[in-house]
């Protein structure tokens, strides 16, 4: 009691602004004085004067003793109820001893005082007190002719006031206590709900949620046994997991048949709290009473089941068992259980979703790993194949050189021409093998950058030299232009060269007349663009996005006849990206294509 001084109870101020102890003592002094006066001045007393004096002395002493009593005791009904009874008896005794009025009517007042300690309604008390006074006065006046002593009339207001004071006092203390208890309980509930709403949804672990739940709910409701049933997704009406509060055992889920638990079953059906009484295991397991006793069976004289529901989905049931046969569950307790169940439902629903997401993530990761594995194997295969292929090509070209150099005797003009074609094809084959290797290398992310600052001119010279054999079979030469003010560039020149070489050789391959031109121009943001334009066959609009795909060459008769792995543009695109650049394509069928390679002036 009175442990929480911060709680303010309205309506109990007023007369109780003075500490209760002082109020009681002052009131009692009044009673003591008046009673003493009545006893001393009474004429018809049938008690010896010494006894009367002793009586008065005890009464005065009792009030003095009260000064040493603790203030807090006056809040306790165990203290003030006996006090009220003692005073009632004392006042009664005083009146009886003075013996001037029919004692019966005093009993009415005693009744009021006693009533006051039990009754809650002060207005009712006033009505009864007024009624009693009127009755008392009526009887007094009826016997007026016998009464001469005016002190008789003094008793009316005196008794009236006393009964009211005692009653009021008792009631206020009682009301205050009730209010305080309620407020404390509510504060406790709120705190509990708050910690619950914080701790439950923050956890994504099923078991942890249920443990927290068990802890919280038991703190308020104090059940003898506490169980949670979670329903099985596949068979929500029959199968589920049972989590018990077995202290010795672990809080672990046990596979159960929900139909064996009538409270749970009813709860799942009604989707609202269910209270059942006096369900005994023997009623449910008539065939095996011995075994039923040993079952972890939530069957209790009183049990309450609360469904764990969220968005119309029932996740399970909270079941509380009480050994007490007629345990009354207050609406507050049931309400609390429901709030807890709701918070649990949200938490469980989150946990379930989280589990699903995790499973999905795991599944995806496995697929991703498998894909990465397959891709890595493919890249490794490409790399080793291209290495393996280089040796026979080296042999072919080595013998070719020997023949061509006349190491095996002089060749005729015709033989030399055939040798030339042979060597050219061997070089073509080598280019394909190199493309495969480059591709696998980029795929494996192994391509390292070799950055160097340089002018673009040496690059153009190299390109011109390397493309010369291709140009020889065409009626045009590639034109090279550099715009005024193109700066020194810091980039990986070997990679830039293979990009341009690839695009240019394509341009030459796919152009039969007209021209192929490479212009180096300044672009926005300090970038430099290498624009390769040709007057070749062109690319249909809808196919432009596809030309960078692996192993794809455009269908259609002329393209089919052009050699290549189809890897060229894919690699070019990857290489351009490696050096921080990009490739843009514009084309019109029959008119030609423009490939624009834009790179930053500086790459790290």
């Amino acid at each position, binding site marked *: 009691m009175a442990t929480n001084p911060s709680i303010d109870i309205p309506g109990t101020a007023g007369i109780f602004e003075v500490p209760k102890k002082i109020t009681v003592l002052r009131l009692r002094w009044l009673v003591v004085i008046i009673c003493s006066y009545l006893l001393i001045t009474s004429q018809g007393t049938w008690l010896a004067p010494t006894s009367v004096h002793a009586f008065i002395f005890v009464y005065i002493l009792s009030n003095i003793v009260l000064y040493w009593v603790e203030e807090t005791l006056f809040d306790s009904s165990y203290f003030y109820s006996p006090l009220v009874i003692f005073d009632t008896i004392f006042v009664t005794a005083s009146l009886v001893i003075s013996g001037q009025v029919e004692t019966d009517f005093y009993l009415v007042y005693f009744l009021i005082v006693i009533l006051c300690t039990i009754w809650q309604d002060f207005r009712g008390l006033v009505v009864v007190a007024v009624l009693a006074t009127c009755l008392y006065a009526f009887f007094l006046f009826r016997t007026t002719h016998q009464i001469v002593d005016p002190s008789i009339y003094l008793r009316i207001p005196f008794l009236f006031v006393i009964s009211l004071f005692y009653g009021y006092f008792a009631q206020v203390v009682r009301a205050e206590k009730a209010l305080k208890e309620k407020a404390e309980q509510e504060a406790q509930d709120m705190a509990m709900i708050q910690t619950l709403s914080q701790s439950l949804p923050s956890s994504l672990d099923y078991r942890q949620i249920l443990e927290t739940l068990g802890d919280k709910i038991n703190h308020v409701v104090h059940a003898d046994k506490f169980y949670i049933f979670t329903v099985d997704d596949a068979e929500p009406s029959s199968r589920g997991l049972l989590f018990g509060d077995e202290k010795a055992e672990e809080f672990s889920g046990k596979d159960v048949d929900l139909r064996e638990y009538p409270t749970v079953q009813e709860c799942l059906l009604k989707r609202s709290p269910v209270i059942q009484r006096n369900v005994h295991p023997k009623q449910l397991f008539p065939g095996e009473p011995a075994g039923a006793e040993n079952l972890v069976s939530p069957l209790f004289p009183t049990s309450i089941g609360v469904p764990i529901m969220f968005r119309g989905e029932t996740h399970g049931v909270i079941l509380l068992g009480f050994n007490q046969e007629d345990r009354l569950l207050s609406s507050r307790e049931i309400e609390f259980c429901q709030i807890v169940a709701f918070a649990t439902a949200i938490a469980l629903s989150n946990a379930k979703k989280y589990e699903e997401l995790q499973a999905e993530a795991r599944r995806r990761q496995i697929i991703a790993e498998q894909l990465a594995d397959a891709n890595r194997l493919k890249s490794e295969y490409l790399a080793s194949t291209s290495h393996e292929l280089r*040796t026979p090509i*080296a*042999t072919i070209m080595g*013998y070719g*050189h*020997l023949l061509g150099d006349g190491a095996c005797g002089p060749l005729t003009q015709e033989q030399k021409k055939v040798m030339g074609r042979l060597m050219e094809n061997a070089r073509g084959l080598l280019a394909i093998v190199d493309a495969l290797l480059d591709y696998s290398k980029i795929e494996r992310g192994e391509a390292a950058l070799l950055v160097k600052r340089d002018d673009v001119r040496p690059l153009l010279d190299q390109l011109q030299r390397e493309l010369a054999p291709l140009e020889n079979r065409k009626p045009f030469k590639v034109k090279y232009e550099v715009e005024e003010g193109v700066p020194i560039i810091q980039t990986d020149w070997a990679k830039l060269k293979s990009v341009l070489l690839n695009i240019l050789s394509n341009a030459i391959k796919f152009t039969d007349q007209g021209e192929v031109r490479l212009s180096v121009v300044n672009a926005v943001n300090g970038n430099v663009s290498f624009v390769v334009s040709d007057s070749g066959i062109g690319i249909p609009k809808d196919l432009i996005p596809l030309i960078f795909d692996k192993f794809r060459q455009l269908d259609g008769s002329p393209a089919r006849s052009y050699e290549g792995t189809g890897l060229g543009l894919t690699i070019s695109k990857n290489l351009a990206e490696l050096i921080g650049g990009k490739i843009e394509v514009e084309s019109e069928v029959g008119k030609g294509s423009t490939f624009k390679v834009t790179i930053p002036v500086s790459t790290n």
Partner: protein
Amino acid sequence: MDTKKTIMVVDDNPDIITIVKTILEGKGYNVLSAYSGPELLTCLEGQKPDLIVLDIMMPQMDGLEVLTRLKGAPDTSSIPVILLTAKVQYEDVLGGYKLGADYYITKPFTSTQLVNGINLLLGEGKS
């Protein structure tokens, strides 16, 4: 040239040996051959060539392993080694030089490449 210089070619592919042999004998070198690393190491016990042309991808013993052994042994460490290999990537070349190779030629190769490399290492002018 008064005395013929001896060059040892190591490759598991007989065709490559034939080609290298033809080119180098044409240039007036005495050419010996071995088909594997262990075979080379056995040969070296008897005779020290002036230069070794070594393949990398070989069964039994990897060319780089052979190179490491050659450069690690005091009596063979001074013999120049040319790696002649199908391993063409930048890291391969760098790795070869790091292990002590004196020259690196990628397959396919031309006679000029090979002769230039040898001339460079043996300090001879064009013959």
